[in-house]
């Protein structure tokens, strides 16, 4: 393999990894606070992409504004979903709320088929983003460069929110100890809503960027990325945001490099992340950055 080819795979892997990281953050934040695998997260990702599609195709709003608006709308949608499907079950056994999450995921997928139609739709890519750059013999789609940059900016914003603002502090408190935090006067409902907003917002950004990179929208497009990003969150240590980002990059780069170096295994691409997950879980059950859990009696 020439160095140019390798660089090309590296860029592709990095941009795929950034997308995974964006979506994985939503999983890990929700899990950190509610101990819930939000199975519907992948479908929120799908929703973000579709809202953008309709915004660009049917309204005169400029594309960059549509991108921002759809991410916000999807974020609000995530909040509503939490209020309807998860909040009533907060005191129920954990398996109940997990099943509710799986149910919500199926509902969104089926609604997607009903409302958006089962046939794939072509994502309207803005002209600026559809060009390719050639740098030193390496030809790269502009999207593949833009994606990691947007990801890094969003991550910086997220870190600021979590580390420097009061809401961020409340979020950290909730994920450390749910009950103690509520006793300290933290408005749990508001913080959880905010968490869902951020998670869904980032998933929507992931979905929109996914659309510009792989411009084919389907109602079930969120299933596989959703599962993989959850895996990324687990690999990094669920509940840990840095871990989710690292997990996302490991998965994205690993997947692209696997295909690059061992083309005969292309068909096993989807299995790769699951195998990695199981290996990591068996070696280090709490993930790379996860804290050791002690058994309570």
């Amino acid at each position: 393999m020439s160095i140019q080819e390798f660089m090309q795979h590296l860029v592709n892997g990095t941009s795929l990894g950034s997308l995974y990281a964006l979506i994985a953050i939503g999983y890990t934040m929700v899990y950190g606070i509610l101990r819930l695998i939000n199975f519907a997260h992948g479908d929120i990702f799908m929703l973000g992409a579709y809202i953008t599609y309709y915004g660009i195709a049917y309204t005169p709003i400029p594309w960059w504004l549509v991108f921002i608006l759809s991410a916000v709308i999807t974020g609000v949608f995530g909040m509503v979903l939490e209020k309807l499907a998860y909040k009533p079950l907060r005191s129920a056994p954990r398996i109940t709320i997990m099943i509710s999450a799986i149910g919500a995921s199926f509902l969104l997928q089926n609604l997607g088929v009903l409302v958006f139609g089962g046939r794939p739709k072509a994502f309207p890519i803005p002209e600026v983003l559809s060009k390719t750059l050639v740098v030193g013999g390496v030809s790269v789609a502009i999207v593949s460069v833009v994606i990691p940059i947007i990801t890094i900016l969003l991550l910086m914003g997220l870190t600021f929110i979590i580390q420097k603002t009061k809401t961020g502090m409340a979020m950290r408190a909730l994920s450390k100890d749910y009950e103690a935090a509520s006793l300290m006067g933290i408005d749990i409902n508001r913080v959880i809503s905010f968490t869902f907003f951020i998670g869904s917002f980032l998933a929507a950004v992931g979905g929109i960027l996914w659309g510009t990179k792989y411009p084919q929208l389907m109602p079930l497009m969120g299933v596989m990325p959703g599962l993989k990003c959850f895996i990324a969150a687990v690999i990094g240590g669920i509940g840990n945001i840095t871990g989710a980002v690292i997990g996302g990059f490991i998965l994205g780069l690993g997947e692209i490099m696997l295909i690059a170096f061992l083309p005969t295994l292309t068909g096993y691409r989807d299995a790769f992340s699951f195998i990695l997950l199981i290996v990591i879980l068996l070696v280090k059950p709490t993930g790379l950055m996860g804290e050791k859990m002690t058994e309570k009696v």
Partner: protein
Amino acid sequence: MKKILDRNQTKQLILTAIALVGLVVLNLTLDSYKIRVVNLCLIYIILGLSMNLINGFTGLFSLGHAGFMAIGAYTVALLTIPPEMKEMNFYMKPILPALLNLNMPFIFALLMGGIMAAIFGFLIGAPVLKLTDDYLAIATLGFSEIIRVVIINMQTITNGALGLKGIPQHTNDAIAGLFGVAPKTNLLWAGVAAILTIFVMIRLMEGSYGKAFKAIREDEVAARSMGINLFRHKVMSFTIGSFMAGVGGGLLAVSLGTIDPTLFKFALTFNILLIVVLGGMGNIKGTVISAIVVTIAMEGLRFLDAAINLGFMTTPALPGLRMVVFSLILMIVIIFKKDNIFLTTYMKVRARYAKNQ
């Protein structure tokens, strides 16, 4: 003198006899579509019980059922499809010569399906069952996806994404001889398998293994200090559950006639989980009832996909509406009925004792 059968066993025997006679009657009187629905009900009873054994009774949250069903289904298909049909199936890449002429009577093929699934269940369970809760759920879900991906890629064995067609439908000659009507499908096999599964589950849960399973579910640490070998019992429950799932998958394959990898997606596991949850975790009777209700509801809601005549107007056909309605009903049931649906039998018993005191 010791009675040969106690009251409970007599009741069970009578119920079994009624069920068998009922199945024969249904088999002879219903049209083929209704027979298919009854058949699906029976298959889902088996699948629901097998998942209840793992998730409800032993408390291992496993989401890997579709994978084990796939193994059972492909084993049965490969062992029963006649060689000429196999050659027609494998037109992209020829089948492995060793598999071409491999053929077995249906009942042995079904057993092999179960055994293969059990072997995989054991191999997967041994490492994965060290995990708990959500991690176990994700790892088993992962394995079920891996099984699917491997099936897609092993073209010389499984015919890849094209799937296998022409799985022989079984007519029951013995009954055809008795009544002079040839039954159309293998309803009776499914019926016998379902009744056997119910029996095995009841016996298992009454015995010491069942008690150990339930102890593990309620409190692992307490169970361990009572001398229960956690790992052995977990693997055992998982393997038995996989066996039943394999048998269920095999029966499903025969009932459908064709299988392909998309059938065994996570949605299939979800259907079974739904049955288990609605019927009650750790509740045998509830699972049987909910398997029947859910299957019939899935079929009964089919009219929603077509155009509906409201009298004054006709709505356009909306493909997908059925699944939306179904998911909605599910969500509503989970959210509003959470308290009495998710009560395990154990918790109900405990509540009863608490009242008596």
